[in-house]
């Protein structure tokens, strides 16, 4: 069946297409080259006057895994406040800050997103992460698996093991847990907290293993690079939320010694200590460092005002901040000699000096990082704000008048400490398409996503060209997934289940023997049971396809 999408204005930055009016052709779930003029068109959509982009990709969103389920258990009030009634097509679900997976999938698709990536999969919890992602309808998905506070790695490093052994362990972990990238959270710090340490600086030795966060970053970024995993090491730096943490962030940017490195929710890591309140913006320094370091990328982790929940692998930081939970409840966990987590509900208030400045800092970063291919649009859902706020964020980036109006409403002292009013830049539609489609696909190493040239998955989002960009991005007119219409006028019209994306670098089988021994001696689970089979993945994902992307070596 051949489908024609006629006359839309195409934004395809992967191929330099900036608003040209072109027709698109779709067959068998893929975009195809324009056929012969006499080809029979089975279905046609008139897209004149509409803005057309590839389906959006969220490369850092907490949609699946134990800590999010803890957040759901903690927040019945979030669900009661936002119920999702069943329809003939869709099931009942609920929630805004910690939505059920069903609501999550429906809402992402209704906003024009066709792929989402869970950034913090614990190896021991990978089954749950894939179950939850599997129960997230509509979107393609994948996960980044967490290493860096697991005792196995820290022991290897403390014993000065060869890099090749670390590489085998990293490759085994990716293959077993069916993930597409490697994440590190507060390197060594989650482990240090189990030893009653409350902070761990970039060059501070771990209390037991003696290795530093910088050592861990170097070793893991080397492993990711030498294995040829397309996605760079995805780094949640040390000292999240600590005033003055810009220094460790600058050090972290250099810690991979020239190898690719991605710094996530960098807003939370861009604080100085100037001013009476000893809390200030270091966004300019951070943006300058990103600009000057071509091997570094970042996503912002913008905060937006309102009630949300922070669900993070960083148990050390979450425990440190537990007094600020709002409402006053929280969970912190030490997990299986593997990692940890912390869940704190949080209410960002525009009249709170710190929150207001955090808001401004995120926007400063967006506007000061020059290369739109190296800065990604995220709120670290739900940590900065629920993902349903993305359209509002896009308007803040595209509409300087609106942005300055909102700036005028926040805490006055915070206004005095930000340069935001003087930043004139407005993002164009082309640049938004880079931030939300072309660049995420490229940095994940998924060549069939994020663009609209022949060969691409026919994941296509069609927006009305409204001057109010928030309205425009809230409810696309059409969303196609694999060439099927799934959303119309911001409402689900067909339920589908997306595919899982992963990588499987090769490793020496010797690591399996070492892991089997280690787990038998020290753990309460057999190492082999961390491995998730194809059959399991397909069952988790309602028959989902499993796509393994090639590593570059």
């Amino acid at each position, binding site marked *: 069946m051949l489908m024609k999408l006629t006359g839309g204005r195409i934004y395809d930055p992967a191929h330099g297409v900036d608003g040209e009016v072109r027709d698109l052709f779709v067959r068998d779930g893929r975009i195809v080259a324009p056929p012969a003029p006499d080809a029979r068109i089975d279905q046609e959509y008139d897209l004149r006057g509409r803005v057309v982009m590839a389906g959006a990709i969220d490369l850092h969103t907490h949609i699946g895994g134990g800590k999010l389920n803890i957040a759901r258990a903690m927040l019945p009030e979030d669900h009661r406040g936002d119920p999702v009634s069943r329809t003939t097509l869709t099931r009942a679900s609920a929630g805004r800050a910690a939505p059920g997976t069903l609501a999550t999938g429906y809402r992402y698709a209704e906003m024009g997103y066709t792929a989402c990536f869970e950034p913090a999969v614990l190896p021991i919890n990978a089954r749950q992460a894939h179950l939850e992602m599997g129960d997230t309808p509509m979107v393609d998905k994948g996960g980044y698996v967490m290493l860096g506070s697991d005792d196995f790695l820290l022991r290897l490093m403390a014993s000065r093991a060869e890099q090749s052994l670390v590489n085998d362990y990293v490759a085994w972990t990716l293959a077993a847990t069916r993930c597409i990238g490697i994440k590190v959270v507060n390197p060594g710090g989650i482990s240090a907290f189990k030893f*009653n340490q409350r902070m761990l600086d970039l060059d501070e030795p771990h209390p037991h293993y003696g290795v530093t966060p910088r050592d861990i970053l170097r070793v893991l970024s080397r492993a990711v690079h030498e294995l040829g995993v397309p996605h760079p090491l995805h780094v949640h730096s040390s000292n999240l939320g600590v005033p003055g943490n810009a220094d460790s962030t600058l050090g972290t940017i250099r810690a991979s010694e020239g190898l690719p490195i991605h710094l996530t929710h960098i807003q939370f890591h861009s604080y100085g200590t100037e001013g009476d309140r000893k809390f200030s913006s270091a966004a300019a320094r951070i943006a300058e460092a990103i600009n000057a370091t071509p091997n570094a990328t970042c996503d912002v982790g913008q905060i937006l005002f309102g009630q949300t929940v922070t669900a993070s692998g960083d148990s050390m930081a979450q425990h440190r901040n537990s007094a600020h939970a709002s409402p006053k409840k929280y969970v912190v966990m030490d997990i299986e000699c593997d990692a940890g987590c912390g869940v704190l509900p949080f209410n960002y208030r525009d009249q709170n000096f710190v929150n207001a400045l955090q808001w401004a800092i995120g926007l400063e970063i967006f506007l000061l990082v020059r290369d739109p291919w190296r800065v990604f649009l995220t709120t670290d859902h739900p940590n900065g704000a629920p993902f349903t706020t993305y359209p509002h964020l896009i308007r803040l980036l595209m509409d300087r008048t609106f942005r300055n109006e909102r700036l005028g409403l926040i805490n006055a002292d915070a206004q005095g400490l930000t340069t935001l009013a003087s930043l004139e830049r407005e993002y164009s539609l082309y640049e938004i398409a880079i931030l939300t489609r072309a660049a995420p696909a490229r940095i994940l190493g998924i060549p069939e996503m994020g663009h609209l040239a022949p060969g691409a998955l026919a994941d296509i989002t069609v927006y009305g060209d409204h001057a109010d960009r928030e309205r425009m991005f809230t409810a696309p007119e059409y969303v196609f997934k694999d060439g099927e219409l799934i959303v119309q006028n911001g409402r689900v019209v067909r339920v589908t289940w997306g595919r899982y994306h992963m990588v499987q670098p090769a490793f020496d089988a010797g690591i399996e023997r070492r892991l089997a021994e280690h787990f038998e001696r020290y753990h309460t689970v057999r190492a082999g049971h961390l491995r998730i089979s194809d059959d399991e993945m397909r069952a988790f994902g309602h028959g989902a396809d499993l796509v393994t992307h090639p590593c570059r070596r």
Partner: protein
Amino acid sequence: MSVAPASTDVADVSCPFCGLVCDDLAVRVAGDSITVRANGCQLAAAAFSRPAGNPSARVGGQPATMPQAAAAAAKLLQGARQPLIAGLGTDVAGARAAARLADRCGAILDHMNSAATLRNLLVLQDGGWITTTLSEIRNRCDLLIAAGGDIVGRFPRFFERAIANRETLFGGDRQCEVVFLGRGPAQPLALPGPVRVFPCDVARLGEAFGLLRAILAGRPLQATEAAGAPLGAWRELAERMRNARYGVVAWAAADFDFPHAELTIQALCELIKDLNRDGRFCGMPLGGSEGDLTADSVQLWQTGFAARTSFGQGRPDHDPYQYSTARMLQDGGADALVWISSFSETRGPPATTVPTVVLGRDGMAFEREPEVFVPVGTPGVDHAGTLFRADRVVALPLQRLRRSTLPSVADAIAAIEAAL
């Protein structure tokens, strides 16, 4: 002369019969007969060795085919104004199917263990907690307090797997101290470190936890005793807890069987938070039997709410007080019951005259024959599956050990849905 059936030895078998989901069992399978050879406890040995039956489904007490039973169950559900899907003793696939069915029929979902699991859930909803998992305990714990019960009765290999080991990641001579707060085990435990019982009234542990918090905070005290034990004994315990390198309080919510027990558990969790101001101390809530954590986890992630949630209005409505199985059956709230119990043939439906469909482990006996009975396979024995462990983080794969014609809970529900 008959020949013994060929037998196979299977290693690293996951056991679904308590919340520990031990995954290191060695079993021998000979035809339909399964024997645990190593690393099983008495619960596992008995549960795995139950002979397979292949009784047929029954409708109105008479043998019926699976399609007939499914059609009868569908008819029963279609005739109901407020169905209740309860028991929920099943694995992930079964829990997903039950949730889908509840959404379709506007049913209430409740788990047979919810009276106990709610004691923990209410604490999560109100204050939260600081907890740990089994491998952390195995390697770090130097003081283990078992609160409210002996733990071994419900989780027989807990001490063997998490406390009895001397060798840890950090050294070779760990001797974890164990204190039973309330009552101790019937058989004394042989463990490397000291084991003692601190007798006290479990139903009054709430005041004891409050007293411990006050002692640790250095507040002036008027109480001379709490929960039947003298102040001096609590002072000693407080000091020991403060000096622990990595202390753990483990509890089974099912042992806290008195009114408002969630307040006691909350007092314990607030005490643990206090201890983390200066040191490291964690809780270890133990549950997961009959798939209770599995059902709760699946429902939470799909719909935002765990057990005791109604879909009767087309959206999730969670009310832990109203939507209990007992209340719904007593007060005429529910007019149809689907009871699911695939692990234990002894956990059958509650006594009721409400029309009932049972998806139960074969061998289940009934005081009153249900309108429809579908014998189902046991996850981890008759079919593969996934089950969550007590610490809520680890989900283990369950294997199929023998050939069985019994449908899984997920299969049975799919057949019922197809007939709707």
